[in-house]
């Protein structure tokens, strides 16, 4: 590949995607920083706010990208995303939590290194993808949807179930020739109480693996000495984890755009458009659907791990289907079928619809000195008797986190009516690993003059 070719590609890319992504992210971050200024945040507050935004941009971006492989490319209607996320993080927890002794009330794990847990989580999520897909892929799109949503609920109920709350691991396990004594004695899914994620801090594990942990600690004490006095580590941890997530998004994007821009991705697209045709052209569509579904499920497992691994604990209610629908809204905003669009959709969803309402409420409360909100809807409506809408306004503002779902619904309906293809769904992202223009110049630009045989000017 010549330098000019590479440069041309780079410039073409810059014109479209990089600029667009940077513009959207820039606008989001600017809005959040300005809101922070309005709230009178100090440096610590600002950094926390940015870390928080980055976290949600990262996780929603990743999940939307994974869903785009299922829905945008292959047309597989998966509404069980959260099930795969849950499997990912639960398996990681089970594998990597430190073991506890006999008879302890607490649930332990196998105490293996965190990276083993992450790999196990991804692999098991993928295997469950296979399990769901095998019988379901012969079904039509809407039946696949029912199977997947049922699957994700089964996963959640299994997490809550008392039956799976604890297991006692036998002292020795015999596998044909190998016999070993696992460190763990009591493991399990923890039931309704969930699991405490008392494994190594994931950030620490990652930095240690990269031999960056000590430099990082040095940097933390430097910041403590010079910029943020007391205990800046949680803030910096948050920011760094955001960076890790953005790198994760980059890897997801790279993997999925390579998948899309290939003969493999072309068959997926053909399956989305008309499976019979793909079949009649000699493509074993079941194999392609299975591969795509397993890859997507594994990525969703990884997304779930990255989403929850930094928390102190996980509980089954975190894995309700509403997360699945958030990710769907993100994908629809961005435009199914476009990888760049998926990430943008995730970022916009996270910044505007997911975190935005809370910031809006705080902003209004900071701007206007408002009294206490009424405690219930009756009191809110009572104001109208004396033609005073204020109690109602205050009540509405106070309930903004609950109203978030209403806002999302309204946005979704508006999108379906006015821009069903989302931000970038209309774009031609040609599914091939090479430029399909006529070889040897000429270009493939639509030239009506070529209609009657003459193919060159």
């Amino acid at each position, binding site marked *: 590949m010549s330098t000019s070719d590479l440069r041309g590609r780079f410039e073409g890319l810059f014109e479209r995607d990089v600029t667009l992504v940077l513009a959207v992210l820039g606008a989001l971050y600017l809005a959040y920083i300005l809101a922070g200024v309005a709230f009178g945040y100090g440096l610590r507050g600002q950094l926390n706010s940015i870390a928080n935004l980055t976290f949600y941009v990262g996780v929603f971006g990743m999940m939307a990208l994974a869903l785009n492989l299922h829905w945008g490319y292959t047309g597989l209607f998966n509404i069980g995303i959260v099930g795969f996320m849950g499997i990912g993080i639960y398996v990681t927890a089970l594998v990597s939590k430190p073991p506890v002794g006999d008879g302890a009330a607490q649930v332990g794990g196998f105490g293996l290194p965190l990276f083993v847990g992450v790999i196990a989580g991804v692999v098991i999520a993928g295997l469950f993808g296979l399990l769901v897909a095998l019988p379901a892929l012969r079904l039509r799109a809407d039946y696949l949807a029912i199977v997947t949503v049922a699957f994700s609920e089964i996963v959640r109920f299994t997490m809550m179930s008392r039956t799976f709350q604890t297991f006692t691991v036998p002292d020795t396990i015999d596998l044909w020739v190998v016999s070993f004594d696992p460190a763990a004695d009591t493991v399990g899914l923890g039931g309704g109480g969930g699991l405490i994620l008392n494994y190594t801090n994931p950030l620490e594990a990652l930095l240690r693996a990269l031999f960056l942990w000590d430099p990082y600690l040095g940097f933390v004490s430097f910041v403590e000495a010079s910029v943020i006095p007391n205990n800046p580590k949680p803030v910096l941890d948050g920011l760094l984890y955001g960076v890790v997530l953005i790198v994760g998004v980059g890897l997801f994007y790279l*993997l999925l755009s*390579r*998948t899309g821009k*290939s*003969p*493999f*991705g*072309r*068959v997926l*697209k*053909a399956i*989305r*458009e*008309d499976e*019979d*045709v*793909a*079949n*009649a*052209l*000699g*493509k*074993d*569509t079941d194999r*392609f659907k299975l*591969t795509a579904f397993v*890859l997507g499920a594994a990525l969703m497992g990884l997304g779930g791990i990255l989403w929850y691994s930094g928390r102190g604990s996980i509980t089954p209610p975190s894995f309700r289907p509403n997360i699945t629908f958030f990710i769907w809204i993100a994908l629809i905003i961005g435009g199914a*079928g476009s990888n760049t669009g998926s990430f943008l959709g995730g970022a916009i969803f996270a910044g505007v619809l997911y975190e935005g309402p809370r910031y809006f409420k705080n902003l209004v409360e900071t701007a206007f000195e408002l009294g206490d909100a009424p405690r219930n809807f009756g009191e809110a409506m009572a104001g109208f008797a004396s033609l005073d809408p204020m109690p109602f306004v205050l009540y509405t503002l106070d309930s903004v986190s609950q109203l978030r779902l209403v806002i999302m619904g309204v946005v979704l309906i508006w999108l379906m009516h006015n821009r069903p293809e989302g931000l970038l769904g209309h774009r*031609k992202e*040609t*599914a*091939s*690993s*090479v430029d*399909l223009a*006529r*070889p*040897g*110049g*000429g270009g*493939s*630009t*639509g*030239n*009506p*003059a*070529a*209609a*009657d*045989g*003459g*193919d*060159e000017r």
Partner: protein
Amino acid sequence: MSETDDSPASESAPAEGAATGEDTPPSASDASTDLTELVEDDPETRAGDDARYAPLEVEGLRKEFGGITAVDDVSFDVEEGTLTGLIGPNGAGKSTTFNLITGMLDPTEGTVRFNGEDITGFQPHEIANRGLARTFQIARELEEMTVLENMMLAPKGQVGESLWRSIMPVTRRSVQEQETEQLDRVWEVLDFFEIDHLADEYAGNLSGGQRKLLEMARALLTDPDVLLLDEPFAGVNPSLEKRLLEHIHELRERGYTFLIVEHDMDLIMNNCERVIVMHQGRILKDGTPEEIKESEEVIEAYLGGEV
């Protein structure tokens, strides 16, 4: 690059460019010879034989849907390098026969043999990969894919259809190389069907006739021995119909074998060397157009007489 040199040769019909123009780029001429090379047996050498090799043989084919017998004891074969027409009034079982041959439906009884192999009950993709390609009655292009993507989809044995090969850095190179080779061929076929100016268009934006052309071009790229065309002329205007027929005749001369379902009797009579007439799920008559024209049964079936 050399294509920009204005020479009269480059203005001739695109697919034949290789034969007439010596200054056409080598890549184009390679691809053009490919188009003929892929037919292993040259029909000229066999022209003398009376009993030609029949790649497709159908025997005792029967299909029941509930209590209805859609196809009843249908047997025929299609000889290499011929244009065989399958005609009959609506509901005669022509499309069902097609679906039985191509694996979209499983027959209740009977066998389908292709190049000597029993392919009854095979999956559609397995049959397509053995060299039996089909088009659909209502053109089923892949709407939200460009014409080029539609075409690039078709070739068999694409290494990049394996996920890991497409992702891994080293193997991706070989995927790109194969796609580049494939691309020459794709443009050659686009030129042949004169839809090269639509290459970047979404297939969904094409007119009905252009879709038929695209579908046939796409089927051709699977390197078939036998092409099954399901009503290729339905909804096509007369001038395009003529063009389609020219393409079919030219391809037949290159050695491709065609089985065409149609209910326009004149069209089949004038173009096919052999005609199979179906009526109410059975074969009514099988012979040359002249024989069919003289058959009382066929006339009755078409005029709605009782059989």
